[in-house]
C-alpha cells in the first residue's frame, strides 16, 4: 500500500500544514515586512506619529555600508564569533572525549555542572560573571590578587571575558551532542584501532573525530548562527558596547544605532545584511556537506 507520488505529496502537505501556518504567519510575513521596512525611512514618527513614509530604495543599505564603524563592528563580530565557536567546539569536544573515559558518577557530575551552566538565563549568567570579575568586589580578583583590575575596561580583556562566558554556557550543547555521537560509534571500530596499536590520542584524532564529522558540522553551524547574533552577554557585560563602543558586535550595534534610536529602517537593513552574511556561511556548509557525501 505504498502511496503514489500524488498521494505522497498530499499526505506530506497535510502533515506540514500546522507548521506552515505558524511559520508563514508568524515568521515569513514579518520577515517580508522586515525587508520592506529596510527600504523606507521608517522611524517612530512614521510608526505612530502619522508622518509620511519616504521610500528610500537602497538608501539605508548605502548609509550602512558607507559607515566606517559598521565595517569595524562587522570585523569584530566575525572574529569574536569565530573565537567563541572555536572555543566552544574545543572545550565541548575535549570534555566529550574525557567523559567517555571516566566512571558513570564522575560523568554525571560533569554533565550536571554543564547542565547548570546551560540552563542559566543569559542575563543571569552575564550578571553573575560580571559579579565574579568585578574590579573591587569580585572573587576572581581577590583570589588572583588583582584587586582593582578592571576586566571590562581594556578592549581585549573585555572581549575575552565575554567570550569565556559564552563558551561556558554554550559548550554543554556541544559536549552532550558529541558524547552521544561517540557513544554511537560501534565498539568494534574503536577496539580495532586499539588492537592496531593506536594511542588514545591517535584514536581520538584519526578514528573518532572523522566519524563524528557530520555531527561536528551540525553543531558548528548552529554555534555560528547563535554566536554571530550574540546580544545579551555583550550588552550586559560591556555596559552597552564598551568604552567608546569598542566592544560592539553587530546585534548590539544595531540596537544602539537603530532600534534604541527609533531608526527602524536602518535596523531592518542591518538585520537583512546579517541574515545574508549567515546565509553565505551556510551555503559554504551545504557545499561541504555535499562534498562529504551527505544527502539532504
Amino acid at each position, binding site marked *: 500500500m505504498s502511496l503514489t*507520488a500524488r498521494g*505522497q*505529496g498530499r*499526505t*506530506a502537505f497535510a*502533515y*506540514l500544514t*500546522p*507548521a506552515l501556518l*505558524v511559520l508563514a*504567519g*508568524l*515568521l515569513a*510575513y*514579518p*520577515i517580508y*515586512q*522586515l525587508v520592506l*521596512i529596510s527600504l523606507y525611512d521608517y522611524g517612530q514618527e512614521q510608526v505612530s506619529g502619522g508622518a509620511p513614509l519616504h521610500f528610500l530604495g537602497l538608501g539605508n543599505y548605502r548609509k550602512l555600508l558607507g559607515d566606517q564603524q559598521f565595517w569595524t563592528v562587522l570585523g569584530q563580530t566575525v572574529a569574536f564569533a569565530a573565537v567563541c565557536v572555536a572555543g566552544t567546539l574545543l572545550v565541548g569536544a575535549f*570534555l566529550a572525549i574525557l567523559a567517555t573515559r*571516566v566512571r558513570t558518577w*564522575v*560523568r554525571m*557530575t*560533569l554533565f550536571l*555542572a*554543564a*547542565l*547548570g*551552566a*546551560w*540552563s*542559566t*538565563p*543569559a542575563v*543571569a549568567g552575564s*550578571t*553573575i560573571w560580571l*559579579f*565574579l570579575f568585578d574590579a*573591587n*568586589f569580585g*572573587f576572581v580578583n*581577590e583570589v588572583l590578587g588583582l584587586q582593582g583590575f578592571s576586566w571590562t575596561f581594556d578592549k581585549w580583556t573585555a572581549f575575552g571575558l565575554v567570550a569565556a562566558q559564552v563558551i*561556558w554556557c554554550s559548550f554543554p550543547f556541544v559536549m*552532550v*551532542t558529541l558524547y*552521544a555521537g561517540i*557513544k554511537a560509534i560501534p565498539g568494534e571500530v574503536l577496539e580495532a584501532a586499539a588492537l592496531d596499536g593506536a594511542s588514545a590520542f591517535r584514536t581520538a584524532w584519526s578514528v573518532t573525530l572523522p566519524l563524528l564529522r557530520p555531527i561536528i558540522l551540525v553543531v558548528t553551524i548552529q554555534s555560528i548562527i547563535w554566536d554571530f*547574533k550574540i*546580544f545579551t552577554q555583550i550588552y550586559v557585560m560591556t555596559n552597552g558596547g564598551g568604552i567608546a563602543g569598542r566592544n560592539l558586535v553587530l546585534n548590539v550595534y*544595531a540596537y544602539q544605532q537603530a*532600534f534604541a534610536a527609533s531608526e527602524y529602517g536602518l535596523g*531592518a537593513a*542591518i*538585520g*537583512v545584511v*546579517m*541574515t545574508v552574511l549567515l546565509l553565505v556561511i*551556510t551555503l559554504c556548509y551545504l557545499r561541504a556537506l555535499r562534498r562529504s557525501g551527505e544527502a539532504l
Partner: protein
Amino acid sequence: MTEALVLVIAAVVAFPLFWMVLSAFKPEDEIISADPVPWTTRPTLASFTRALTVANFGRYLGNSLIVALIVVVLSILISFLAATALTRFRFRGRTTLLIMLLVVQMVPVEALTVPLFFLMRSVGDSVPAFGLNHLGSLVLVHLAFGLPFAIWMLRGFVAAVPVELEEAATLDGASRFRFLWQVLFPLVAPGLVATSVLSFIHAWNDFLFAKTFIISAVENQTLPLALQVFVKPDQNDWGAIMAGSTLMTIPVLIFFVLVQRRLVSGLAGAVKG
C-alpha cells in the same frame, strides 16, 4: 587522574552557578564586600523573601510556566508532523523548504520586533487572547521561532527509524495514522525530549518579546521582566537579583535533570542526519 581532572573541571564550570545561589543566601553586607568568600556563616532567606513578595513573583512564575509548557506541547506535535513529512515523503519543494527553515533561523530576532508588534496588534483585534498584552501572543511567537530548529533536529531522528518498520507495520494492517502515533512517535521520543527542552528554555528565558508585547497588562508579565524590578538606577538589590535568578534557573535545571538521559540519546539521534 583523568577522573580528578574531570571533577576539577566540573567544579569550575559549576562555580558561577554556585556563587549565584550562595549570594542569594548571603546577608546584604556580605554580598558586596571587599573580601568576598565562597561561604557564608549567616545564611538568610531575606533575599528570597524580597524576591518573592516585592515582585508578585508567584504570578509571573505562573505566566512563564504556562507559556513555556504550552509552547513545548504544541511544538512537539507540530514539529513531529512536519519532520515526518520532510523526511519520509518525497515531493517537490522539499529541499527548498528545508533550506528556508535554516534561513529563518539566521534572522536576528531583535529586528523582527517591530513587524511582530503590529502583527500581534492585528491578531488581537480579532482574537484578543492572542494579541498584545496577552500571554497567547508570547505562545505564538515562541512557537514560531522554535519550530525551525525543532524540525531540523527531529529530521535526523525520524530518518534513523528504518523504512522497513513502516512497511512491516502496513503489512500487518496498521493504518498510517496508527503507525504515526503508536510506532513512530514513541521511537523518536528521545529526540522530542531534546527539542522540547530547548523550546522550554527559549520560552522560559525570553525577555525581548515579553517586553515588547506586554505593555499595559502588568499582571501578564513573565519572570525575566519581574527580575528587572531589582535592577534599580541608584543601587541594584544584588541579593534579590541573585535570589530571583536562582528561582528562575531551578525549574529549568530540574527539567534538565529529569530528562538528561533521554536528552543525550535524543541529541545523538537528532544530529545523525
